[in-house]
């Protein structure tokens, strides 16, 4: 087809400029006889202009323009020894004090299994999360890696309840309890072992002689909140019999996640994401922590009723053919250990074994 005819056809079928797609433009201008071939701006520039309207990101010509070469600082490689493993190398991305390879896990290594202990931990987590929220603390950054998780808590006698209007009421046994709980949640970052290694022998001797002075010197600038008397785990608390804390609603995802973090830290139990997103109250999280007791079998219920009947026999397990044959005396349950005793393999005769009942030696079982 002649170029002019081709051009006229394209012009006749070309849609309005507003509806022209960049792909169509590329097709129109692919031929060397297109009217845009004589323009100085390249295809890339025109496409960018059409697509972005003048505010195109990135370099104008990513294919031909060379990037500015960065000046590489020359490093003195004298004395460099390549590391064989990662021990000793700096760690990037963790807080300062966590730059150690020997890390404790966020959650305890052993999960809490006792039901009462789980309820106590759940109540404690709920109280601490509610106290943080009431005091306007950030829930996202709460319950960090070094938040204390001691057994003795100040939350045992704190009562949580939901009012008729849906608001949560929290009652502290003592006025100082709230401040004490808040101060107990502050992270206690331990000293790094690298600082201790740099201590010389003279300093070690001096510190051994007067350890109290160093301890008091470090403790003076730290302000401590008034300590409330920690409650020991004596008689079971009231919330075990009347668990009002389970009906507390979960107002936001940050509250739920903070609560889950604390539960994980105290108990080691993980809660699936589906349960977390679907939970509306604290009680919805309980089945993931405490498994319900196994349902009773019918044989356990029938045993006292049928024990006196001489013609009734009750079995706890399924009866298989071997059980019936054994009752008749036609079959005998054979202990696999009693079938034979392996004594080795003789290259000439083959398998060497002994049947305990017959006492035969070199009994070939093949």
């Amino acid at each position, binding site marked *: 087809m002649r170029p002019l005819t081709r051009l006229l056809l394209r012009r006749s079928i070309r849609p309005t400029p507003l509806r022209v797609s960049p792909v169509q433009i590329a097709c129109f201008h692919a031929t060397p006889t297109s009217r845009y071939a004589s323009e100085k701006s390249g295809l890339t520039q025109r496409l960018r202009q059409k697509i972005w309207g003048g505010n195109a990101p990135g370099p104008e010509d990513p294919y031909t323009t060379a990037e500015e070469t960065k000046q590489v600082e020359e490093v003195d490689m004298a004395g460099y020894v390549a590391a064989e493993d990662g021990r000793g190398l700096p760690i990037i991305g963790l807080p300062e004090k966590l730059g150690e390879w020997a890390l404790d896990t966020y959650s305890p290594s052993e999960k809490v299994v006792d039901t009462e202990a789980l309820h106590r931990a759940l109540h404690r987590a709920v109280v601490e999360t509610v106290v943080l929220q009431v005091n306007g603390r950030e829930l996202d950054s709460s319950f960090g890696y070094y938040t204390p998780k001691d057994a003795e808590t100040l939350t045992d006698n704190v009562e949580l309840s939901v009012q008729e209007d849906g608001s949560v009421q929290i009652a502290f046994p003592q006025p100082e309890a709230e401040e004490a709980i808040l101060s107990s949640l502050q992270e206690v970052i331990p000293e790094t072992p690298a600082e201790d290694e740099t201590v010389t022998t003279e300093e070690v001797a001096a510190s051994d002689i007067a350890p109290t002075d160093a301890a008091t010197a470090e403790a003076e600038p730290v302000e401590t909140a008034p300590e409330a008397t920690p409650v020991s785990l004596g008689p079971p608390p009231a919330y075990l019999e009347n668990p009002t804390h389970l009906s507390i609603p979960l107002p936001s995802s940050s509250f739920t996640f903070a609560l889950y973090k604390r539960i994980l830290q105290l108990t080691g139990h993980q809660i699936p994401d589906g349960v977390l997103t679907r939970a509306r109250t604290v009680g919805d999280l309980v089945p993931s922590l405490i498994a319900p007791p196994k349902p009773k079998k019918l044989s356990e219920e029938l045993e006292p009723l049928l024990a006196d009947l001489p013609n009734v*026999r009750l079995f706890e*397990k399924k009866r298989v053919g071997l059980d019936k044959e054994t009752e008749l005396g036609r079959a005998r349950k054979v202990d696999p250990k009693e079938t034979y005793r392996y004594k080795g393999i003789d290259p000439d005769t083959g398998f060497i074994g002994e049947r305990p009942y017959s006492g035969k030696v070199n009994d070939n079982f093949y």
Partner: protein
Amino acid sequence: MPVKVLPAVSKAQNGVGAFVLQCKRLEFNYCDAAGSSRGMKCSDRLFLKHCLPQFAKQNPAIEMHVAPRPSKHPIIRGVYINGREKVICVRNLEHNQVLKKAELLRNSSGLQLRKLRNPVQSINDSVRGIFSPFHGPKHAL
């Protein structure tokens, strides 16, 4: 000579002299989880809990076995003295219906179910003899 008595051995008929119960054992199998075992084991009206003790006391000659059979429908298996067994599936039945099935098995013998073509069953010879075309009055057309 005096008439000799034909020697005849008495024909045994169960129930004439002595009665021997044909059913020697009833096995009740249920599933702890399945819903079809509800009539056998469910809470208010348990067959196994309420009906079976009384049924066992009424039938001391029959051995009763109660055993779970997981993931299966509940059944009652009757074992008879001729060595045969009869099994009735009692899935989705109520406790009174299960009891009726148990009584049905108790009342049965181990004989195979067959169609009774003749309503009269007797071990005695027929009084008038078996039909013969060669005997009897001659027919006249």
